[in-house]
């Protein structure tokens, strides 16, 4: 098989990887914030279940979670006539997993905010939600950019795990070409594509950090 054909196939399949990447972020970033707020709740009935969720999601392999959502959930839901397709199953597993990690990053950022910011906002009459939305959260974003960049880059690479439930992403195709052509070239090409994607992620974060550098 021509190398250009291989590149073509892999670039084509990277669309699916990129979709998985963005869909995961779309849902897990807000979900992570909700989980972080639940984790910080003073009510144990909320904070303890959230903690258990985090332990399970962060304490077991994403690979296992993918298998769980796709095979085990499907075998349970089959009786109710519900079937989760491969790609949606991957999105669900990724969202649940990444939201757990994001939530701890949010929490770290929120808890690092000085008490004085809350107090100043309170004496100025801001409500609690206004304080969070207008004063706290915008500053949290700046603080959590470096760890978020880490997670985003890991997510780019983790999309390759979706091959375990036969989602036709980059690595799935690279593997299958490699096994039919008996060469490592497709694996190498896949590596370059991941590197390229993460280069872009890195640049985006550099840009955001620069943009938020107007204050300390």
């Amino acid at each position, binding site marked *: 098989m021509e190398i250009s054909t291989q590149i073509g196939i892999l670039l084509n399949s990277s669309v699916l990887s990129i979709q998985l990447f963005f869909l995961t972020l779309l849902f897990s970033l807000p979900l992570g914030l909700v989980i972080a707020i639940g984790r910080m709740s003073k009510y144990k009935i909320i904070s303890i279940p959230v903690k258990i969720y985090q332990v399970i999601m962060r304490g077991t392999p994403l690979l296992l979670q993918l298998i769980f959502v796709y095979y085990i959930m499907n075998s349970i839901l089959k009786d109710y006539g519900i079937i989760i397709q491969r790609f949606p199953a991957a999105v669900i597993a990724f969202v649940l997993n990444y939201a757990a990690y994001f939530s701890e990053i949010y929490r770290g950022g929120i808890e690092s905010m000085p008490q*004085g910011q809350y107090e*100043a906002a*309170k004496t*100025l009459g801001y409500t609690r939600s*206004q304080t969070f939305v207008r004063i706290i959260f*915008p500053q949290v974003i700046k603080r959590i950019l470096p760890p978020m960049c880490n997670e985003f880059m890991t997510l780019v690479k983790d999309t390759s795990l979706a091959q375990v439930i036969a989602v036709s992403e980059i690595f799935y195709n690279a593997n299958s070409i490699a096994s039919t052509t008996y060469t490592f070239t497709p694996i190498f090409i896949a590596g370059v594509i991941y590197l390229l994607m993460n280069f872009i992620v890195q640049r985006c974060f550099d840009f955001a950090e620069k943009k938020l550098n*107007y204050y*300390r």
Partner: protein
Amino acid sequence: MSILDVKNIKKSFDQLAVLKDISFSVNEGEVVAIIGPSGSGKSTLLRCITQLERADEGEITLCGLEMCKSVNSKSVYSSHEVLHKIQLSCGLVFQNFHLFPHYSVLKNVMDAQIHVLKQSKPKAKQIALDFLDKMGLSDKADAYPCQLSGGQQQRVSIARALALNPKILFFDEPTSALDPELTGEILKVIKELAKENMTMVIVTHEMSFARDVADKVIFMDDGYIVEEGDPREVINNPKSERTKQFLKRFSGEE
């Protein structure tokens, strides 16, 4: 007419009693200085009045609105609406300014007007610029807090409090984070406000300032008000032994 009434306030943190029995009142247009050694409860008192802490016992009335009253020797607080209304009628200036670093100076002074008082944007901007001008900071409107000196930051925070048109303004050691030169800047601003009959309660370690500006001085020690009255009387001729002892250490400063 009294604008602030504090009656028999008590406040403990765990086992540590910080305010033991505090009563005083502030009249409209009056400037009250609270002095006393560190750990005497001055800041905690201010924080109780500005709702950053809740008193365990006692009554606080501000601008005719009841913040809390004593029921079976426990402070019972008013409804959320009343507390919010009281919050809006008082401003607080912090020792460490606590400006919002992600907002420009102008936005620091404008934002609460728009989102808390529901003021229109152009009006809020006008008010903000007026107060910044008054604080001598018109040229800093577009700067960010991190680009300002401590004295400038403190003046912004005073402008931010004034922009909400409070009936009474509290200062919690407003100059303690500043060097003597910048301290002068802030004291000048407070003197100006006093001339305009702004009602103010100032926790301070600046004795000569307290004597010159305040209408009344309160000396606190160990959770009690030990002495209160005319500033010249309290500072120059203190009656209680504790006050004398405390003020002796400051006499060298003048």
